[in-house]
């Protein structure tokens, strides 16, 4: 009898050890010093307690902003502990998916996969925002579009962001002056043909990549940066867009710049940081969000900011984004999570400009706090974003047949010249996938 009991005890202990091992949640607690809000900024209507689990992919700057929000939130709610878990960009979505499958998602996460919203896994916030006194129209449309399942406010707001980031062009004034060319406008995008001409004028090619001065940057994702140019205005059509004349011209231009060594190749950029090249004065025009600009200032680069180039004449565009923070239907401590989201939608907007150079997502708050009044670079950045930030047309994930890196490899490395045929082939294959992913995505609704 004793032996049998021992067997059962051993089994229970073994099961407990295994289950505890699997059930533990790793977490990195924020280690930033306390950050106080100005009096009256934090309105904490409810007395909450508990632990708020926040999951994010790396945000840059050692996650200083989100750690600071956590500290400020803990100060406003003494009974609350904030735990932050930073997961690598490549595995973040997989980790959240796994947690959703297990019915144990975090309280707050950066909603990097909008499928979660479409499938009803995320708490919808439209009514909450009204309750919190937040006008969603104050948020920059480019940024807040990432918080919706289909890129439009009509499809529902499921997350809040606290800053506005944008991939803008940054140009080295000295290199453009030396080439005798005018600076790009801040309120209007260059067409890719103009960008090509500017790039060639600035570049000083050299067979040795360590000595060359490149005119501009040409990442493989740049020609199709606007989803509408690739998948049409409804995000459901490839024919005439992905393989249309504008896209064919864009890839020809892009390949030409890399082939002629006016722009660094993707291969080169795998080994050398583009921002380091720009900071060293070896790149005329680069792209960046605002995170790299301190490096340029430190290196004494006098630079200006312009919207991204476009492939269709008349467009003006900057691809903008924010961290879309949201809470899941199955999150353990939803009341706490919603209070944190309220904090981000209100106080967080004012806090963010004190933590990084980015403007807040709320344009009315940006105006209210005088963002850019003390810094001409910030003022120019805001001018560019205000003029060119537009929401992207939404396309569900899973269209693999369209591969810009492969197109450029064929054109540059293999010397192919039949751009139209390459794009036609990818457009045909991609349409089939597109139909399938839209069917699956639409099925998720409700």
């Amino acid at each position, binding site marked *: 009898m004793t032996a049998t009991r021992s067997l059962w005890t051993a089994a229970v202990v073994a099961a407990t*050890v295994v289950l505890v091992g699997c059930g533990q949640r790793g977490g990195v607690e924020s280690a930033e010093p306390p950050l106080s809000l100005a009096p009256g900024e934090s309105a904490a209507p409810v007395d909450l307690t508990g632990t708020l689990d926040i999951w994010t992919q790396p945000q840059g700057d050692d996650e200083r902003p989100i750690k600071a929000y956590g500290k400020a939130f803990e100060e406003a709610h003494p009974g609350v502990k904030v735990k932050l878990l930073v997961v690598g*960009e490549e595995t973040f979505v997989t980790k959240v998916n796994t947690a*959703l499958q297990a019915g144990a998602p975090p309280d707050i996460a950066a909603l990097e996969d909008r499928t979660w919203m479409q*499938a009803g896994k995320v708490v919808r916030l439209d009514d909450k925002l009204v309750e919190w006194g937040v006008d969603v129209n104050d948020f920059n449309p480019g940024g807040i579009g990432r918080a919706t399942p289909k890129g439009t406010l009509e499809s529902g707001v499921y997350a809040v962001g606290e800053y506005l980031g944008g991939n803008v062009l940054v140009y080295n004034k000295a290199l453009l002056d030396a080439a005798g060319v005018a600076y790009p406008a801040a309120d209007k995008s260059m067409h890719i043909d103009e960008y090509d001409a500017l790039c060639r004028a600035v570049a000083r090619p050299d067979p040795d990549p360590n000595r060359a001065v490149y005119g501009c940057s040409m990442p493989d994702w740049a020609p199709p940066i606007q989803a509408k140019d690739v998948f049409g205005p409804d995000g459901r059509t490839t024919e005439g867009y992905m393989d249309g004349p504008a896209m064919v011209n864009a890839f020809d231009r892009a390949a030409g710049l890399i082939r002629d060594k006016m722009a660094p*190749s993707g291969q080169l950029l*795998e080994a*050398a940081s583009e921002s380091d090249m720009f900071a060293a004065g070896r790149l005329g025009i680069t792209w960046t969000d605002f995170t790299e600009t301190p490096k340029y200032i430190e290196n004494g680069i006098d630079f200006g900011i312009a919207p991204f180039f476009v492939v269709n004449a008349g467009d003006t565009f900057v691809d903008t984004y924010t961290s879309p923070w949201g809470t899941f239907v199955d999150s353990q401590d939803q009341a706490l999570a919603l209070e944190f989201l309220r904090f981000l939608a209100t106080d967080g907007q004012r806090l963010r400009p004190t933590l990084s150079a980015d403007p807040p997502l709320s344009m009315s708050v940006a105006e209210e706090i005088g963002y850019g009044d003390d810094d001409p670079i910030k003022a120019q950045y805001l001018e560019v974003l205000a003029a060119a930030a537009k929401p992207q047309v939404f396309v569900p994930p899973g269209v693999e047949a369209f591969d810009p*890196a492969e197109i450029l490899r064929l054109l540059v490395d293999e010397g192919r010249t039949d751009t139209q045929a390459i794009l036609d082939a990818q457009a045909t294959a991609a349409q089939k996938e597109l139909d399938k992913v839209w069917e699956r995505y639409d099925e998720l609704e409700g």
Partner: protein
Amino acid sequence: MRASTTTRRPSWGLRGEARVAALFLLPWLFGLVFFLLIPLVWGIWISLTDEQIVRVGEFVGLANYEEILTDDPLFTQALGVTLRWILLTTPLFMITGLALALLLNQRLPGMYIFRTILFVPTVLSGVAVAVLWVVLLNGDLGAVNQILRSFGIEDPPNWFRDPNWAMPAVAVMGLWGIGGSAIIWLAGLQNVPPHLYEAAGIDGAGEWAKFRNVTLPMLSATLFFVLINLLVDSLLVFAPIFIASGGTQSGGPANSLLFLMYYIYRKALVEGDLAYGAALAWLLTLVGAAIVWLAFRFERRVYYQAGTE
């Protein structure tokens, strides 16, 4: 009053040492059942539904398998890449591992240091090794191409950007970790009884004849073990491809690195199509089972066990 022997409680038919053994095996059995058998069966069920990672699925029969086998060119591509990898690397890794083991088996001063050096890459993180090789094999600035250029090769391979060189580049990464199988070969070599070599020498056998008629037959068990391990590992290639493609969905230039395992990951965990991924995983299992079955068939012809013949 009955004798105690008639009131004995059931003990699962185990007594004494068997019961203790069962006790020690319990944690492992628990893991086997809950983390292998149940997920395996569950995987079969999911593959017969249209389950997505964010939505519970409905039964669709063999629709996923039908789509994979009749309407998925990427599956064909991934299967071809995986089979090519097996054909390229299995003989390469076996011969290289054995050659290194033969060298390490020499009685020379400092040999333990060489053995340690050879084994070090095996204990390094696969991800760290992959990152290192991606940088070394960079076409423009990588050290390997710089060295090749210094030897007068003006147009060295563009490694990970050339569909013809991408797989050999990954094979080079794999060769760096050959120490693991070399150690197994070495253990096999050291188990060959020295008197067999002495007898062969007395019969007038040279080095090649000794290797062919003594070493190889005596290593056949090791050979089979290494072969099965390499075949199974070949089906599970993932980390170097994930790193070489920068963690994106790309399967390398012209999908030349789209291994089946990587394709399953993309479908199931990146796109969230769990059902399709599960069906792909079961097809990979069938492919693996077929290959291992072939290896066992082959083994019957070549396997030599001392004392049986």
